[in-house]
């Protein structure tokens, strides 16, 4: 394939090794005195008590809120079409089968 001619597994492996080296560089410059379970691991919020883990975590339904709000005119009818009723699934099936048959028939006439 023409589009994959440039592909070289060695290049991928070298890139991976370089990436690992960079990560190691970053980590090696970190604090040597780090210890687990001490006050070092506590969250510091200007001396105030940080909120609970439940409060800190951003939940899935908060992500991309603006995206859905902007595309409301697309999402409202689309979600409405996903009724979850089994009869509707068969309606789509029959409708599409009829549509394809009609298209094939009309194209055959031209």
């Amino acid at each position: 394939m023409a589009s994959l001619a440039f592909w070289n597994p060695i290049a991928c492996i070298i890139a991976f090794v370089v990436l690992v080296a960079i990560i190691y560089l970053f980590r090696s410059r970190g604090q040597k005195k780090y210890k687990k379970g001490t006050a070092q691991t506590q969250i510091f919020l200007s001396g105030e008590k940080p909120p609970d883990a439940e409060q800190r975590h951003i939940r899935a339904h908060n992500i991309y809120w603006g995206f859905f709000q902007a595309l409301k005119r697309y999402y409202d009818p689309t979600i409405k079409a996903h009724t979850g009723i089994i009869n509707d699934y068969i309606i789509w099936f029959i409708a599409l089968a009829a549509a394809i048959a009609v298209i094939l028939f009309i194209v055959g006439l031209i």
Partner: protein
Amino acid sequence: MTQGIPFNIPFLAVAVMIGIAFYIIISQRNLIKLVMGLSILASGVNLFLITLGYRKGGVAPIYTHTPAGIMVLPIPQALTLTSIVIAVACLALMLSMIIHIYRHTGSTDSEKSRIMKG
């Protein structure tokens, strides 16, 4: 015996059966009726296959004391039989699932018993 009957009558019956079946599947929200519709659909397709197997003047391919004449190839009959077996299996599976749905939700209505949507 079948001389008086026009050849197209069975095909009309097939069309009517499949039409009725799809009407039931689309319009009836009761799951048991839905399964009945699928059963009628299966019967319609089976009738179609069996009708294809008819050849005028053909002899059934049973070698025991068979009359003289050209035997028909029994492929459509074999197909129909296989399709009946499969339809029975599907029917049993669907009905047992509906029993479970009724136990869980107390309803056999496809809209009221639905949990997942969107």
